[in-house]
């Protein structure tokens, strides 16, 4: 039972990883753009600038958005993979689903905020940074908090139950008896 459920999830992980590889290949074949990785600052030698943001995203923007969404999906699937299959209850999947939903909100806000800036040339500021960057810095950091909460608060329910502890101690004891 356990092996079968983990086997199913491994196919999901393989599919996501393969999709990421495919996106990298597509980016490799995308029409090149000058200075896509930045160029020297016109007056300060030790600094680089990004230049024309719209041009840099023209051929790879959608691939990149898909890439980041898939990485977040991979992250929550990997977190679930680390939990024993019999403890992946409906409640667990709801929490993990909510964590994924939050990551999608952050991705959307930072990508669309950047897009809006490229179109209008104007941005608001939040917590000291342009709003899309605030979503990146604070939002990407906060993306982990739901997972940290599931691990910490759900430790005895999903990660290492009293029953698990007993099983492990029993395993250790039977091993030492054999030795």
């Amino acid at each position, binding site marked *: 039972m356990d092996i079968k459920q983990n086997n199913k999830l491994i196919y999901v992980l393989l599919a996501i990883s393969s999709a990421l590889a495919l996106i990298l290949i597509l980016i490799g074949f995308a029409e090149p753009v000058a200075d896509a990785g930045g160029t020297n600052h016109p007056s300060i030698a030790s600094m680089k600038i990004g230049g024309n943001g719209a041009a840099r995203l023209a051929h*790879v923007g959608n691939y990149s958005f898909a890439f980041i969404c898939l990485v977040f999906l991979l992250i929550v699937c990997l977190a679930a993979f680390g939990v024993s299959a019999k403890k992946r209850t409906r409640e667990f999947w709801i929490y993990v689903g909510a964590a994924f939903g939050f990551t999608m909100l952050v991705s959307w806000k930072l990508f669309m905020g950047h897009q809006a800036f490229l179109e209008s040339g104007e941005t608001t500021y939040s917590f000291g940074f342009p709003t899309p960057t605030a979503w990146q810095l604070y939002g990407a950091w906060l993306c*982990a908090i739901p997972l940290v909460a599931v691990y910490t608060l759900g430790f005895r329910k999903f*990660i290492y139950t009293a029953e698990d502890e007993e099983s492990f101690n029993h395993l250790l004891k039977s091993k030492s008896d054999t030795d």
Partner: protein
Amino acid sequence: MEGFRQEIIVGAVLLYMVFCVVTGIWAMRRTHNASDFFIAGRGLGPIVIALALFSSTLSGFGFVGGPGLVYSIGVSSFWIVAVSSTGYALAFFLVAKRIRMIAEMRDCISLPDVVAARYKSQTVRLLIAITIVLGVMGYLATQILAMAVVMQAILSGTEMFASIGLVTCVIISSAVLIFYCVSGGIIASVYTDLVQGAIMIVAGTLILVTATSVFEGGMQEATSIIVADDSESMMPFGAAGIIASMGWFFVFGLGLAGQPHLITKMMMNKKISDNRTILPMSVIGYLMAALLWVSIGVIMRAAVIDGRIAPLALPDDAASVFLSVFTNPLLAGVVFAGLFAAIMSTSDAFLNIGTAAIIHDIPKAIRGKSIQNELFWARLVTALLAAVAAAFALYSHYQDATLVALLGAFGWGTFAASIFPVVAIGLNWKGATASGAITAIVTALTINLGTQLFGITFPYGMNGQLVAFVSSMVLFMGVSLFTAKTKLDQDINRMMDI
């Protein structure tokens, strides 16, 4: 106080080094065998592990290179910092419980021990051990060199040591590192990490307070100045662009669970249930220490664009110039001690895993048994490894700068690409095979080394480490699915059900 700035900084660093030496002597009395030397006899509490984990993550790269990156390319490198919390979470979900279980069941003292138990393969053990040794040499050499360069900069500012040479600084800093690592092994290492972590948290927090007061309008005024100069460098993907940012996001986010110097520490806690508190403490500790990375970088970029400070000769000067211009001498002393702490906490972790690979794992993989009197050899090889890395760093600095850079490529990205699939996925999937593991490791090493050796670059600033990591993940799972499974040992099989 300003007149004694240099003396205060030297005093703070000296005090810190004396502390390291005293800790080494104290830990020596608690180190009785190889298990104590390498994994502290699996007897460490949650606070020690949590601080050791995050302080080992944030090396000299975080304190010097991080602000330098923000100064140079804007917010691109924020992805490394922001995604670290996810990296810790994944490492705990995938690795923490199982690696600790195997360590206790099989008396493992190193990561290659764990993979050998999981895959029943000495080839996998050997490949992981070789990867670790190569990575450690590059990492250690860069850390020792960074430590010596900073020490030279500090000491040359005083009258007494104005003409001190780099070689002398390498000798002094390596001697302190070697002393406490040789005498106290991992026990000295983690207890110095505890204090190192605390210093880094204090330094990060105080620097943020200082940084926000540099411009009257706080951080928002600084970021507005950067936006007016070049908006892209302050937008979410920075000057390096979206593909480079995505690469860092992937390699540093997922890759944390593949760093041997970090996940080895997950074998050392007293109780598995401590993991529930270790994770949040590590995440918060890293966040506070990393404030330095973000705040110094942004303020220095804005200050140079605004004309308040002359352009830096090198981006890596950002932290030291910030400290000398904007901070009071006491804070500068704490931060410089924090910088040494960051470098030493990473170096001691690498020394420990490198030594284990050389005296424990490689002999075991080749001869089928470990060497006699491991504790003696562990101490000897720790000293030798540090000495070789120091010599290597100096040779590279004076003769051939590409050598350290080349092995530096065997750092984070190679560990991530070769160890993450094998350990993080392999410890949770009974279907993973030794053939899959070998393919993943060889692929990761080949792509990372190949791109460095032959100067191969990818379009849009795509990171070669990202290509290696995604390739090794796909191949690990694909090859495992299509190769014959070896029957797991009964204890490993039962452990993987828990």
